[in-house]
């Protein structure tokens, strides 16, 4: 038996390597855009020029995929702004309008299903008790007797644990307080999900699926642009809206007006009025995450 007939000869191995290398070069040349995206740097290390090019390419890619004009913003945080949120526990009736307004605004995957907002039904005589709360309640009408409702989403902590555990720095806190994810840099290790005490981060276990007729083409790079399989996503206070001065979607849709939003640094904002005049609490205060998401009692 000579060398060439051996099934695992050095020659056969080198032949295979050559085929693989040749194939990969052929692939990368026909899909240079995908290759470029794959090798793209962390968003925070990009220059303005690089960002502009990336954003332009993403707009072309999404427009082709969904058949409508897309805008991908990379608008940065403005000076003198720190976003805060307050939710009136005495008003919320648990109707889940916020959940689906968020899904539509922020292009969350429909199947597999991702919801950035979880509305927890709690028993009045137990108080805020996560162990005995129910997210799957489904009566004919809400609110139900003897219950109250506590919606939970990203608390935009001042001292976020999710960002400190990220091994690749793919998630961070912006100067206006919004905790964001660079979906291109995320490696999908899900450490941040384990670190978040509020269950506010969600993983794309499969390719996210949003029907083209329902996709929202007004997007932000760090927010609601279409995601890919294997990355983590979360509430960004609708970064694509609030950086343009608009209220988050959940605030506007709430039929009982339980959701309030504004600039914590502006003494005349409604959020400051609430902090100064109402009874306010944060979730899991003992963990020292220092949320910018407050719960209050309007009455």
């Amino acid at each position, binding site marked *: 038996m000579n060398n060439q007939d051996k099934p695992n000869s050095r020659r056969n191995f080198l032949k295979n390597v050559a085929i693989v290398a040749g194939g990969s070069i052929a692939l990368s040349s026909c899909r240079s855009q995908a290759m470029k995206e794959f090798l793209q740097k962390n968003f925070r290390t990009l220059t303005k020029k690089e960002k502009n090019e990336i954003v332009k390419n993403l707009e072309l890619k999404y427009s082709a995929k969904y*058949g409508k004009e897309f805008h991908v913003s990379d608008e940065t945080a403005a000076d003198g702004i720190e976003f805060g949120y307050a939710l009136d526990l005495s008003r919320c009736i648990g109707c889940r309008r916020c959940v689906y307004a968020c899904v539509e605004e922020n292009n969350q995957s429909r199947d597999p299903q991702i919801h950035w907002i979880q509305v927890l039904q709690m028993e009045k005589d137990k108080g805020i008790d996560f162990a005995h709360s129910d997210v799957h309640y*489904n009566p004919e009408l809400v609110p139900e007797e003897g219950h109250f409702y506590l919606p939970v989403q990203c608390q935009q902590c001042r001292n976020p644990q999710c960002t400190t555990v990220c091994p690749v720095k793919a998630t961070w806190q912006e100067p206006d307080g919004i905790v964001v994810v660079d979906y291109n840099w995320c490696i999908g290790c899900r450490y941040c999900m384990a670190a978040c005490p509020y269950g506010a981060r969600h993983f794309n276990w499969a390719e996210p699926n949003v029907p083209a007729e329902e996709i929202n083409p007004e997007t932000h790079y760090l927010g609601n642009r279409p995601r890919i399989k294997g990355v983590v996503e979360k509430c960004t206070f609708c970064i694509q809206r609030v950086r343009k001065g608009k*209220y988050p979607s959940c605030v*506007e849709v709430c039929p009982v007006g339980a959701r309030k939003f504004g600039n914590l640094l502006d003494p005349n904002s*409604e959020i400051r009025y609430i902090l100064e005049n109402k009874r306010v609490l944060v979730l899991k205060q003992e963990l020292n995450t220092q949320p910018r998401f407050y719960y209050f009692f309007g009455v």
Partner: protein
Amino acid sequence: MKDYIRTKFKIEFSPYLLIWVIAVGCSNTGDLYVTDQTPVKFEVNSTILQSGEIAVTPPPFSDGIFPCNDCHSSQKPNPERRKLIEFHDDVSDMFNHDSQNRWCLDCHDVNNRDSLRLASGKLLDFKESYKLCGQCHGDKLRDWKVGVHGRRTGEWNGIKQYYLCVSCHNPHSPKFQPLKPEAPPVTLDEITN
């Protein structure tokens, strides 16, 4: 699950790692959809009050009911406190707003039905109905003005549109009506089966 892990392990450590990486890198572009529909946004029509005081949503009149004077101008006002049986009997039937002590003409003006009327006798446009509500519910009016009670749309840092009290509370029966909740999130059983 075990099979999944085994397969993933095999794929990742095969000599074709490079091809796998490129294939994953390239697979972000999915099917091509063609549509031109924009998603529904939550915008409301707003009316700026003449005084420029507070921008509010239009009062939610029933279809064809306003102006009231279309009918009432030809009728002789009857200021006697009573239950209505011929017209507006639906309102009279549902009325549940301190109904022991109040009736229509405590808020509607007896001579000009296109106006509301404060306890002081001052006439009020329907767009300013919040002032009428605030006669009793002063704490709610105060919270509403600063945006803490009720709904607003617009800009968190700029112009806002206020929903009138009566956009959410029927003035004749103001208790907020229960709603049908949207669908609950999928359960583990629904995913695995």
